[in-house]
């Protein structure tokens, strides 16, 4: 009997070893209480993630060979958000191949009903009112807003928050960038609001708006690629609570608890800081007072 038990234990051990060996060699210890089989997933044994298409730099990077992904293919793991997603997946015990990405427009991500993803990751800001409709993860990025303007335009000389008041500002609909304009800048002209950042960028290029408000990391791609004649006027000071990006889950999905543990581990062991430096690492623009 005993030998049988020992044999079984040995067999189990061998299985465990081979399982680890076939996975990533650096797989960290699984999170207690979050065994892969116990997770509440859309598809068993697979992580199904959603993000917007096109997936913009620098949040996503590496380009795309797949015609379904317009700008960047998230499954190449490049860019801050996929990098973080695959780190979380690794902590939960998933291999790269077990993670799939689907294109989901932002406005669809919070529609009522069953969500077509395990989590949605597209620079969604956590807000108390939004928590009534979805469950957010802990912060995977703390963000500042910034203003982009054309280098040749008067707005580029602005050095204070109050100085922005007299300009026509624009932002993408549904973003905290827009909320920041109306709540904290309170410009004399009503701000323009666009369906997508691409439209807002076109408006900036056309001088239909003087300044475009976006999250600071996004300004790099805008000023370098989309509108080379523009520059960052400045970063906007944090007002009230720190703005954070969170993953979006079906309301009440228990998966969020395990993901939170993974995010906390990534934060405490410096992984998030390392990925931030690698993919977003951009400082230098002045903070407007």
């Amino acid at each position, binding site marked *: 009997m005993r030998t049988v038990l020992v044999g079984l234990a040995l067999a189990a051990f061998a299985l465990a070893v081979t399982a680890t060996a076939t996975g990533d060699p650096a797989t960290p210890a699984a999170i207690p209480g979050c065994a892969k089989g116990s997770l509440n997933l859309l598809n068993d044994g697979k992580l199904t993630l959603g993000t917007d298409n096109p997936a913009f730099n620098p949040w996503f990077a590496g380009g795309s060979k797949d015609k379904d992904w317009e700008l960047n293919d998230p499954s190449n793991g490049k860019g801050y958000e996929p990098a973080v997603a695959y780190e979380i997946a690794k902590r939960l015990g998933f291999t790269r191949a077990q993670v799939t990405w689907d294109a989901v427009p932002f406005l669809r991500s919070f529609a009522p009903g069953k969500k077509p993803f395990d989590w949605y990751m597209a620079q969604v800001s956590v807000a108390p*009112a939004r928590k*009534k409709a979805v469950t957010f993860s802990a912060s995977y990025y703390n963000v500042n807003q910034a203003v982009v303007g054309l280098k040749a335009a008067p707005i580029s000389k602005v050095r204070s928050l109050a100085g922005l008041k007299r300009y026509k500002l624009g932002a993408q609909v*549904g973003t905290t960038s827009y909320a920041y304009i109306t709540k904290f800048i309170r410009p004399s002209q009503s701000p*323009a*609001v*666009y369906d997508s950042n691409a439209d807002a960028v076109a408006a900036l*290029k056309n001088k239909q708006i003087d300044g475009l408000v976006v999250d600071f990391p996004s300004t790099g791609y805008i000023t370098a690629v989309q509108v080379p004649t523009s520059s960052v006027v400045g970063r906007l000071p944090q007002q009230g609570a720190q703005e954070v990006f969170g993953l979006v889950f079906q309301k009440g999905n228990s998966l969020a608890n395990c993901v939170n543990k993974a995010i906390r581990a990534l934060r405490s062991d410096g992984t998030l800081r390392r990925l931030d430096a690698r993919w977003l690492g951009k400082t230098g623009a002045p903070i407007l007072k």
Partner: protein
Amino acid sequence: MVLLTVVAVLVVRSPGWDEVKQAFFARDQFEKSFPDILGAFWTNVKIFLIAEVFILVLALGIAVLRSLPGPVFFPLRALAVVYVDLFRGIPTILVIYILGFGVPALQLQGVPISPLFWGTVGLIVVYSAYVSEVYRAGIESVHPSQSAAARSLGLTHGQALRYVVVPQAVRRIIPPLLNDFIGLQKDTALVALLGVVEAFRQSQIEVAATFNYTPYLATALLFVLITIPMARFTDWLLARDKRRQLAGGVR
């Protein structure tokens, strides 16, 4: 009625109803968002009123061009046909996109870049094409003997149109005209694409801020509310017209 009750019961007892109720019919969200949406709705009304005036005039012009007789006017007729085919064929949303982002990108001196301006122009261009066909139907529905009689009295083609044909045509096309104007009223929401904050965009802003869909309901309500008086007004116009035509005649 029975059908409606069955549908209502099915909806209310569906497994997702509580979630839908919270997402679409949240009273506090409605009250919070309504004033802002109402404010933004004036932009829709303004766009609508300005566009409507231009559409009525422009569309009539196109319809008249199309009805010009004789080979001399072939180029003008052809122009009118091409205009209608083109702008009735392109989706309104694309016309607005192309004008609103395309023309300002040309950076021409003196050409306005205002999104409100180009959005309204887009609507005028598209709806003139629709409405000109309604006018044409009206003009062609007037019996040829009418215009023949007018011409035999010595009126020119223009005068015959002005005093005989068009007045009769317009009366007949009031219901389909209203159809197009309600369509126009609703399509004013498309101007939001260019960055203008009107009722739909305002509700979108509120929806995205709270992840709650109730503001859309508020916007829908406003659009319905403005449509109903227009429909009743048309009914009244038609009834008045009928009374006058039948005045003293057989009932």
